[in-house]
């Protein structure tokens, strides 16, 4: 039993953290997260240059990582710095391209950015409800339909799209040049896009993709829980700082017992979040992957929202302002629950497991 990160992963985290703190300062982050293209292509290249993406897959696919904890340490740093770079697409695409047996060279080098488009307006979290269709009219596959809120969509070179080909759910590669992508920023910063498909050219990657998609969604969800964890820890550190310095009624607000107890409850919840992320990361690629990811995304969704709301409330007005970083951390912590299945969605997965297992 050992809860310390291996030296490799500690170095990975350290590399990421140093780069983000040196190259992705708060003012920079705030500017690029809300200004088109809503991230910083140069910094993306910088991160790629550090070799970070090679940690996303295992040696058999040309990488040097690919375990749950590799994803977790990277995304914890992303969360800590509130970095808007669209790495989520890379994580999910790496799993999908691996499953397809497709080359990963351009993804791992960072030369090509990938987004993954699964959810639709009427089926945001559930591959079963996909209505986007694929047809092969003789001149190759063509996709029709709409994919909504594709994270990193507007800045991707490739979008991996889930669509129905006859009875089966298949996975396609759509080159950004062939797609009608409408980019916009997210309310918590960072790039997203609508993908409008009207007979768009596509390359078939996996003909029967249901299990690969489910797997990619799990890995994406794991990444998001780790990101939330990092963001919670930064938020909490800022809250503690503020409680120690901000005075009201002649004493630091941290002297008020009720705020003390509420802060204690937050720290306990954050420890619980850390634990469930560890558990999920350790379960990836094993038989409990689905259950542990669902537990993590469910629990972290609830805790992240609590931390966000309490951090704002306990700060008071200052945390309502754009200028003060806590407001942006709080937005990310709340909105992360809207990505790849919210706390109730994953609770339902757990309920089904309870009822059928």
């Amino acid at each position, binding site marked *: 039993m050992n809860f310390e990160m291996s030296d490799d992963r500690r170095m990975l985290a350290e590399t990421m953290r140093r780069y983000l703190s040196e190259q992705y300062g708060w003012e920079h982050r705030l500017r690029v997260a809300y200004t088109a293209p809503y991230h910083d292509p140069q910094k993306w290249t910088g991160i790629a240059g550090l070799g970070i993406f090679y940690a996303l897959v295992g040696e058999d696919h040309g990488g040097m990582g690919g375990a749950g904890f590799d994803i977790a340490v990277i995304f914890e740093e992303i969360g800590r710095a509130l970095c808007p770079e669209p790495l989520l697409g890379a994580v999910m695409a790496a799993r999908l391209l691996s499953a397809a047996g497709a080359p990963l060279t351009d993804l791992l080098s960072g030369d090509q950015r990938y987004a993954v488009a699964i959810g639709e307006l009427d089926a945001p979290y559930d591959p079963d409800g996909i209505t986007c269709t694929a047809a092969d009219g003789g001149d190759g596959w063509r996709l029709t339909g709409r994919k909504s809120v594709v994270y990193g969509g507007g800045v991707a070179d490739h979008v991996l799209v889930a669509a129905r080909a006859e009875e089966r759910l298949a996975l396609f590669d759509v080159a950004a040049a062939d797609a009608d992508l409408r980019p*916009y920023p*997210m309310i918590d910063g960072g790039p997203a896009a609508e993908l409008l498909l009207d007979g768009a050219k596509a390359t078939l990657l996996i003909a029967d993709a249901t299990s690969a998609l489910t797997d990619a969604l799990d890995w994406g969800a794991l990444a998001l829980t780790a990101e939330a964890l990092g963001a919670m820890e930064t938020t909490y550190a800022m809250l503690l700082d503020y409680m120690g310095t901000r005075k*009201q009624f002649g004493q630091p607000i941290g002297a008020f017992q009720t705020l003390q107890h509420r802060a204690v409850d937050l720290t306990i919840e954050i420890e619980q979040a850390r634990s469930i992320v560890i558990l999920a990361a350790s379960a990836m690629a094993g038989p409990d992957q689905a259950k542990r990811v669902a537990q993590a995304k469910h629990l972290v969704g609830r805790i992240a929202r609590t931390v966000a709301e309490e951090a704002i409330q306990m700060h008071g007005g200052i945390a309502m302002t754009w200028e003060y970083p806590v407001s942006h951390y709080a937005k990310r912590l709340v909105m992360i629950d809207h990505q790849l299945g919210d706390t109730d969605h994953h609770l339902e997965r757990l309920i089904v497991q309870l009822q059928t297992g």
Partner: protein
Amino acid sequence: MDLTYSPAERAFQTDVRDFLAENLPPALSQKVNARRELTKDDMERWHAILNARGWLAGPWPKAFGGQGWGPIEQHIFEEECCLAGAPRIVPFGLKMLGPVLMKFGTPEQQATYLPRILDGTDWWCQGYSEPGAGSDLASLKTRAERDGDDYVINGQKTWTTLGQHANRIFCLVRTKADGKPQEGISFVLVDLDTPGIEMRPIRLIEGGHEVNEVFFTDVRVPVTNRVGAENEGWTIAKFLLGHERTNIAGVGFSVQALEQVKQLAGKVMRGGQPLIQNTLFAARLARIEAELEAMKITNLRMLARAAQGDRLGAEPSMLKIKGTEIRQAINDLARRALGPAAAPFPSEDLDGNLPIAPEGHAYDAASYFNNRKISIYGGSNEIQRNILAKGMMQR
């Protein structure tokens, strides 16, 4: 025990409803219901419509151009306005300064300022909070030093809501440095055109511009602009804190917002069926609806006491706490119901040309974030709990 309005109150309710149906411009109510920011023009337009009917200042005495409404009429009016999606009356002149002038102002001050509030000549804003003195008003530092017939004001105010639209500001300032913190405070009226005033926007969490900082550098204000006696502004501050509390529970907002969430949950699809068919979501809705039904009665119970002339003590603090918790929980549901469609940074362009959220819901997430304020401002819910605890332990 009778939970219904009297015939006269019901008749008034019908009047208000009819009036709103005829006179509330759909362009305004759509904007309000879609939780979008209103322009200055929007707000002034609605004020003018109400003023034409004599309802802009319903609770004001008739002598000052109001209707002399009691708490129940005021409640009926506000609730119907909420349900119809009318813009909120901007409160600083009408609900705050107006009553202050009627109680503490000189006849000249009343004659000068009250009509200008009604006809829209003056847009007032509030200079209470300061950086470093949020809920702890008595510690304010902005000072006004006497120099002949003027005060010279130096300092900084913050959280000045809609100050960007205002031409005047009422301020609490320190006119005496020694003694108890509450003792040396005065209440003064300041023209925002006076040299030495700078107003800077504060951008809020969701990106909107609703509040401001105001900087005072050697701002000269005639002593005649003081309301009430020098160094006795704390009395006015306390009067104001106790005054505007009839709609403190915000029940009308909650009722309207819950109805919108219900409709939204009937439209949004999840797992092949409308979200309302999802047991977990429906459970969240049903739980909040029960709390809101209880809150309505809690609110009416206190209102009935106020209407009987009972002086409410700490009870409005309960309404504030539970009322804001319920409103925020409903905002949370709306955001939640949207799923990924809540994620885009709201913009009219996106909403109009490429709608992602169902119509009228593009600003729901922004509104959820913006409404975190309601449990902070006007005395945070923690301060309200302190007030209640004080009353409770003294029993």
